[in-house]
């Protein structure tokens, strides 16, 4: 045992913390009144940029718990150049993500080759009914405006900063 008993030293720590809390305020974020600010990379909710989606089903196949549902059909679009042949494109009929199943792994966003889905750090979309957690394509498109720009990288990085498509 040292000069000061350990119990007293421990109480000193607690006392210092009390003084700190009283003077500078508590660290707790009082949630409904004040909100935490998640970082731009936070995986909150998936946003869909409908124009880029070609219904290629890659995200559906790669999803580990199969919570994405896509249906599409082929249509003819006007040609790019005047006088050209009309193009066949895939039109998106249905794009649903069931957040009751989603485990927020981010694989779908990573595999999307056309940059059609993005992470948004929004997290306030809980529902009283579990069936309402199935977001359809209009709801998913509404999240698009909450998607932040990609952050620049730390020095020494060889990666390129991508851009988020805006309407």
């Amino acid at each position, binding site marked *: 045992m040292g000069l000061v008993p350990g*119990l007293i030293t421990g109480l000193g720590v607690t006392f210092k913390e009390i003084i700190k809390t009283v003077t500078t305020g508590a660290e707790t974020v009082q949630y409904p009144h004040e909100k935490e600010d998640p970082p731009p990379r936070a995986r909150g909710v998936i946003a869909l940029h409908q124009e880029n989606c070609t219904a290629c089903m890659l995200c559906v196949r790669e999803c*580990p718990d199969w919570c994405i549902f896509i249906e599409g059909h082929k249509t003819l679009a006007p040609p790019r150049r005047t006088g050209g042949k009309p193009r066949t494109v895939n039109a998106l009929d249905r794009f649903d993500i069931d957040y009751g199943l989603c*485990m927020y792994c*981010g694989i779908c966003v990573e595999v999307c080759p056309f940059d059609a889905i993005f992470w948004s750090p929004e997290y306030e979309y809980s529902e009283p009914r579990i069936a309402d957690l199935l977001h359809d394509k209009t709801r998913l498109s509404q999240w698009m405006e909450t998607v932040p720009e990609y*952050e620049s990288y*730390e*020095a020494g990085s*060889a990666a390129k900063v991508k851009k988020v498509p805006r309407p």
Partner: protein
Amino acid sequence: MTAISDRRQLAYIAAQAADARVNVELEAEGMTLNIGPQHPATHGTLRIVARLDGEQVVEANPVMGYMHRGYEKLAEVRTYPQVTALINRIDWLGSFANEVPFILACEQLMGIEAPPRAQHIRTILFEMARIANITLFLGDMGVQLGAVTPIFYAFRDREHILNQIESATGGRFHPNFDRIGGLKDDLPAGWIEETKRSLREIHKFCDQMDDLIIGNEIFQARTRNIGVIPPDVALSYGLSGPNLRASGVDWDLRRDSPAGLAYDQVDWRVWTHPDGDSFARYWVRLQETRESCKIVEQLLDSIPAGPIMAKVPRIIKVPEGEAFVETENPLGVMGYYVVSQGGLEPFRVKIRSASFSNMSISPWLLKGAYVPDVITILASLYFILGDIDR
């Protein structure tokens, strides 16, 4: 009518018989105490059936499997990139550490190596997962002994580390950031400075725990010479990690086989304690948190420039073969035995998790312990239920 009255009579007889049985049990020498499955001291659903003689435990048997989620089988029907999302959930307090041995095993099978920048950042996140995991233990051990203050400090200061993990990977608890051949993304700008600031908070937290818990006479009286594991017993039960080092065995895979990680580039030491009791296990973990902070601080200053992803095909097929890689995770040695038949999915994945082996010593260790010490000993062994049952 007669049937009902008959049933009543039977129930009455059965109740009488049960009473008699209870009486006989109370008169008998021993008593069976069920700790768990729902007990706050077991951090999850672990059941310990203890046979008591007065205040002393005669025999204690852990009953595991209440949280079995079958990750080994689930991994057989998932592609390799999907498996990392699942195995995040094994040791849920230090999730990133679960991914590393699996990815290293796959890389070994495919014969590729992550670029140095990726290895560096991998090591940083690995150590940060360790800090996040052990910080909670440092507070939690106090709660098991009746001191409530440290856990609040632990939760508060762990948040600094979790925020940094979130801003780099996107997930506070389940990063899913490690990929075969490198990492998912590079670090965002300003991350290194922020991380250094959060590590300073952890250093302060460790000093506080030194004053609050290590120096506390009540804590010492409750943990010194309680639950002593001699080194030979620890080795024979397959203990690993801080539990083994607290018994005086100088064995750390970070130093002994740092393949694929950047531990050989930093200056650090392995802490051991000769006593092997509950106090030693706490002390070793506290020193290890400090040491992890030192490792991360040194690595942050020397991240090499370059890509973070090796050349890997878009659709990952692992060639036929088998590999076993183990690393020093926060709870001990974690290993993955991956068998591939050349397809998209692993043929078999066997997970060697640290807590399962650490827990297996409990029948030996709890024999002869007093009931209040059972909780102390279990807390100092520090297991995570997801890591035991998988």
